[in-house]
């Protein structure tokens, strides 16, 4: 997998980029996540990231007449909190940030729409306490989504994207405390930005 990602990155960086066809974009938005940890001490305790401001940047190039290949990086940062089933109060656990890279392929779906799916890695970083006391963690990631673009300026399109990705979360600290297996974490995001136009 790492070899695939490295090859893709090299292709994007070093292959004469067919400048006119290289596509790049940047977006901002929000990402929501399912819980990272489901604990149980007399009652269920869920640790969940809050809705997180999101930055996205990406590159892609044609792979076939209708399909492309690219890489997309996403950064999110937001609060982390724990809540008991009784719901008496949310416990503030500081901040958590993620940085992910998704190698992807994309294709047409309809006028202005394209689908995008890929695999990659995601890095979680949090405060030096609690579930990140032993440091951050790097996990595999699968994801995909839809892009919608429409002409806005002479050289740029407005790009609206919806994304979903999934990873299986744990940390060294959780393992050292006796947590077993990993937690499926599902994330969804909506972002808005600009993409280079090919008109």
């Amino acid at each position, binding site marked *: 997998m790492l070899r695939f990602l490295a090859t893709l990155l090299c292709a994007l960086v070093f292959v004469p980029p067919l400048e006119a066809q290289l596509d790049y974009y940047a977006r901002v938005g929000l990402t929501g996540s399912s819980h990272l940890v*489901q604990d149980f*001490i007399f009652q269920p*305790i869920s640790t969940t990231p809050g809705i997180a401001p999101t930055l996205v940047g990406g590159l892609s190039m044609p792979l076939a007449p209708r399909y492309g290949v690219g890489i997309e990086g996403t950064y999110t940062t937001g609060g982390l909190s724990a809540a008991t089933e009784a719901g008496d109060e949310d416990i503030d656990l500081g901040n958590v940030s993620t940085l992910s890279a998704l190698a992807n392929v994309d294709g047409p779906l309809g006028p202005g729409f394209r689908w995008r799916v890929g695999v990659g890695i995601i890095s979680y970083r949090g405060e030096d*306490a*609690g579930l990140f006391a032993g440091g951050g963690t790097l996990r595999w990631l699968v994801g995909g989504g839809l892009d919608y673009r429409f002409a806005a300026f002479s050289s740029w399109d407005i790009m609206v994207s919806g994304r979903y990705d999934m990873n299986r*979360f744990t940390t060294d600290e959780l393992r050292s405390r006796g947590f077993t297996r990993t937690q499926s974490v599902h994330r969804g995001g909506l972002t808005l930005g600009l993409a280079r136009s090919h008109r």
Partner: protein
Amino acid sequence: MSRRFITAACALSAVTACGEIGAPTRADHYEWRFTNGPDTISFHWPRTAHPVRFWVADTFNLPTHTETAIANWKRALLYRDFEGELVADSNAADVIVKAGFPPGGGGILIGRAPECEALTDIELDFDGRNITLPMHVYVARRFDPDLPETQRCFALVMTHEVGHVMGIFRHSTDPDDIMYFAPTVEQPSLRDRQTAEILHQSRVTVTTTRRGE
């Protein structure tokens, strides 16, 4: 197209199956409550009382050891169940840390190590189910306090005593735990951490009042 979609959906289902992390049972904890016959007293600081305020005498390097002890326990807990800070005014303190022994002798929770000893004195009214604040921690040396071994001893007994202040009102029977009566380890063990996590999710069965209120 529909066959491809079904295949993709099946693949996604396979990846996301068994989606829940397995929480530890924390069955390896030890008793932390005061007992009086069949009656038990359980205490932890409510989040509204965070950060717990420590006034620390400026001797034996105790302020630094106290801050380190607070940090050790803070790092040991998953859910920020304990926060503490040092304050300059002893009148505002929840916990007073001094060198020496209690004026009247006694002290209920004693931790001993070869180079030093310490105790936590908690004024607990069993019948009234009330703790009168501030709690007191006393740290005494057995050797030259400037020796590295003695300083190391102060560090580990402070982590032990802050464990008592936090609500672990008993001693562990395992020498590998910081809450063993004669601690030798410098950090809370897994058993210490699990015990602390359980106590912080347990029901508090005493009230607290401040002396003079």
